[in-house]
């Protein structure tokens, strides 16, 4: 049962010697062995190394009473999406093209996590190359939703979301290029933030669409998220796009009251196409924040079909270039191993960048992107502090339901891609369950580098709802 704790609780227990890191790690590994056959979460398990690292953590904890202050994740078992390079461990990005490729170096975030004492238990499944919204597009088989294994867990960081949702790890790293953290967080009842672009280093993480890729993680609570982001955030000399900006202690302002905050809310949705349960849960969550003292303001939609159209031009353009290095010459398998979705994006992107088409596609999309960034500031963030929005227009769908219709799959990103185009942070928090018992989350969006504010709102909501019935639910596996 130790695996069900939050990071905060686990740290307290380690500090007061109620249990050891070995026990925490074993609890996670046992849970994985018990349930992974059903859920297909891990591509690679690093059990042996994890137990060694846990033993090392225990000896540090035994000899240094204040070790957890210098190493805030000491002895905490975590998982990595299979996009993250970790020295000596296979990195597949969910694709058989990279199967068997063992990274000779650590991503900056992985180095930071190791330095903070985290115990890496394995690498999680994902949509190949992070292309997908459901977790089904993996060459290692689909990951299943722990709340109902007939349903998708959301993607592309499917394995990491499910690892946390089903208590296999205390936190798991993910990447969010168009919603790949927020969507699976929403679909699995976990907390997931896409940080501001440039807040967390991308060095060592397989690139999907470089100007959109944001590095985040999944946790069980907002507070756990903040503890973890304190470790991963910051400028990196190896990533020229990371920002030279001070890192606050993200746990400090969690409990600041919401009064004086002006939060925007969408009354009307894009084409009115949104699932009824999702709409109801969203409205209730908004009301809850109003009860907590925030001023709720009606907004015209920040969503426009132009945004998702632009995203599906710039993103495949970058994908087509980023996947060029997998040429089968130096490592991995040949390009014929690419799946349909990767091929589709390589072709879309190559076309959008071709001579004669560049201006009408890539250039136009970049212009839309610039307008969006400007509009978000002038029309929204100059007047309000944050924006509330659904994460996905629908709750989790059944496995196989959208796999034959790429356009339908792409449209599930309609509420999430805006944050990636604009480089702003978006926090997905659990807000309830549909009548079928499937999780639904809500997004809180803010201006660049407003993570503290998003945590403040998310934490207030979490605390206010912690005794509600739906909060007590656990996946039955």
């Amino acid at each position, binding site marked *: 049962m130790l695996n069900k704790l939050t990071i905060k609780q686990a740290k307290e227990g380690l500090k007061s010697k109620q249990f050891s890191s070995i026990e925490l790690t074993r609890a996670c590994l046992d849970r994985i062995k018990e349930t992974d056959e059903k859920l297909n979460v891990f591509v690679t398990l690093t059990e042996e190394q994890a137990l060694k690292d846990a033993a090392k953590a225990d000896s540090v904890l035994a000899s240094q009473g204040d070790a957890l202050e210098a190493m805030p994740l000491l002895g905490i078992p975590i998982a990595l999406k299979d*996009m*993250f*390079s970790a020295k000596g461990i296979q*990195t597949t*990005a969910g694709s058989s093209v*990279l199967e068997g*490729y063992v*990274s*000779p*170096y650590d*991503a900056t975030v992985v180095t930071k996590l190791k330095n903070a004492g985290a115990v890496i238990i394995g690498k999680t499944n994902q949509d190949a190359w992070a292309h997908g919204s459901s977790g089904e597009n993996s060459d290692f088989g689909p990951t299943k939703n722990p709340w109902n294994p007939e349903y998708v867990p959301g993607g592309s960081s499917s394995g990491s979301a499910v690892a946390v949702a089903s208590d296999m790890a205390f936190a798991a790293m993910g990447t969010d290029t168009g919603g790949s953290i927020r969507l699976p967080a929403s679909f699995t009842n976990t907390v997931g933030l896409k940080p501001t672009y440039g807040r967390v280093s*991308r*060095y*060592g*993480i*397989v*690139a999907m*669409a*470089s*100007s959109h890729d944001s590095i985040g993680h999944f946790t069980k609570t907002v507070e756990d998220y903040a503890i973890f982001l304190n470790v991963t955030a910051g400028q990196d*000399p*190896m*990533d*020229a*796009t990371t920002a030279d900006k001070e890192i606050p202690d993200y746990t400090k302002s969690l409990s600041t009251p919401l009064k004086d905050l002006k939060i925007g809310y969408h009354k009307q949705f894009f084409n009115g196409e949104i699932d009824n349960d999702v709409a109801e849960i969203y409205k209730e969550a908004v009301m809850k924040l109003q009860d907590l003292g925030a001023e709720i303001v009606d907004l015209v939609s920040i969503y426009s079909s132009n945004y998702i159209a632009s995203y599906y031009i710039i993103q495949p*353009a*970058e994908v*087509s*270039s980023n*996947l*060029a*290095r*997998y*040429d089968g*010459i*130096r490592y991995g398998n040949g390009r014929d191993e690419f799946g349909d979705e990767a091929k589709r994006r390589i072709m879309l992107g*190559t076309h959008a*960048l*071709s*001579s004669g088409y*560049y201006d009408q596609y*890539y250039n136009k999309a970049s212009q839309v992107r610039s307008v969006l960034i400007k509009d978000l500031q002038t029309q929204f963030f100059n007047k309000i502090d944050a924006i509330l929005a659904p994460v996905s227009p629908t709750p989790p769908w059944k496995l196989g339901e959208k796999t034959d219709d790429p356009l339908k799959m792409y449209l599930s990103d309609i509420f999430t891609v805006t944050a990636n185009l604009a480089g702003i942070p978006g926090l997905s928090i659990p807000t309830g369950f549909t009548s079928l018992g499937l999780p639904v989350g809500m997004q809180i969006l803010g201006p660049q580098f407003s993570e503290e504010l998003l945590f403040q709102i998310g934490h207030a909501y979490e605390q206010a709802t912690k005794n509600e019935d739906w909060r007590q639910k656990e996946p039955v596996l």
Partner: protein
Amino acid sequence: MNKNKYQPVIGLEVHVELKTKSKMFCGCSADYFGQKPNTHTCPVCLGLPGALPVPNKKAIEWCIMIGQALNCEIPLFSKFDRKNYFYPDLAKGYQISQYDQPFAVKGFIELSNGKKIGITRVHMEEDTAKLMHQFGNQKNENYSLIDFNRSGVPLVEIVTDPDFDNAEDVKEYLQRLQQIVRYLDVSFADMEKGDMRLEPNISLRSNTTNTTNNTNKPILKNELPPYKVEVKNINSFNFVGKAIEFEIKRQTEILDKGDTPAQETRGFVESSNSTVSQRSKEDAMDYRYFPEPDIPPIRWQESQISNFKSQIPELPDAKTKRFEQEFGLSPYDAEILTREKALAEFFEKAVTDGKKFDIDPKKIANYIINKKPNIEDTLPAELIQSIVQVHQVSSVDEDKLNEIIEKVLKENPKAVEDYKKGKETVIMFLVGQVMRQFPEKIDAGKVKAVLTAKLK
């Protein structure tokens, strides 16, 4: 062939490899020449999954300084772009280069005949890895090896306007360019090591009629011909000349027949001083350039640009003129002395040292040009000493010299006899004997001359 029927239109692309300590986008050593293969590599220059480029500040500064030395404008905004193409020596499947907003634009180099060659642009990019092909008789003997030591070494590309019309001007331009980057001390510019790579593009403009579309309208004077032939793989200034001459002849023959030469890329063949077709227009690559998302655009402050400019040393042209004016040198002497920065500096130091002895800079210039002292193991002061001594020797008292020579000849009858029998090398022994009698160093040549005369 009517020499005036066609006017050659020639432009030049030159790649210059910078001599920075580290590579363009990672911390690996950029010194790859003669190193063990794949020892100067890291995830970044190997293009491993997840690796990201971080631009080398020094290389960018040097690129801008090259632009400034070539009289370019430095735009306040610049960025890197990805040039996408497949080749096994290209680790990432794209080369980081600059497309539409290079670091420097619109400059020129002035040739000795007064002609100004326009510089279209100066931009920064990265070198590729090196392929080594092995061929054998058996299937398993055919393989290629890749050495990534060169992958990511900084390259500056300098592109001219199509302003040349003959090979001689191209060669002079190249010499000047090489001299400038050496003066800036940003590249060894060693042709043999591949520090400079040359790609001329050549076409012919008809001076009479438009040969492409039978309209019989004369081509306007500054209109470009409807085709362009690019020649690659050239590694010496001479070969560029040869390639241009070959192309002018080849294209003239085609035009004379009423055809238009094909737009294509050709390779230079050293053994025959000719060019062969490599790639036609139809096979031209679409590089699908787009802004490099991993490197934020670069915005300069005016103060940064002027700061780079202040670091540029006196360049060859300015130095030559100054040597003429300040030291009264002839343009010819001034040009020789400024060909290499180290020699020019040696000369100036010698001039300063020579002031104490009241030696005319022209005398120093002549001495250096005629005697070609090895400036690496001679100090300017030592050079001045030799000049001073030569000067003193000429004032050696003739009577005293004659007297001593007589004495030495008397004391060495055997040597004198040997000499007269034909053993002429003995003369040097006698010269030594004479010089020994003088406390100061005297001119051996003079002693030898007097001795030879006396022995006749």
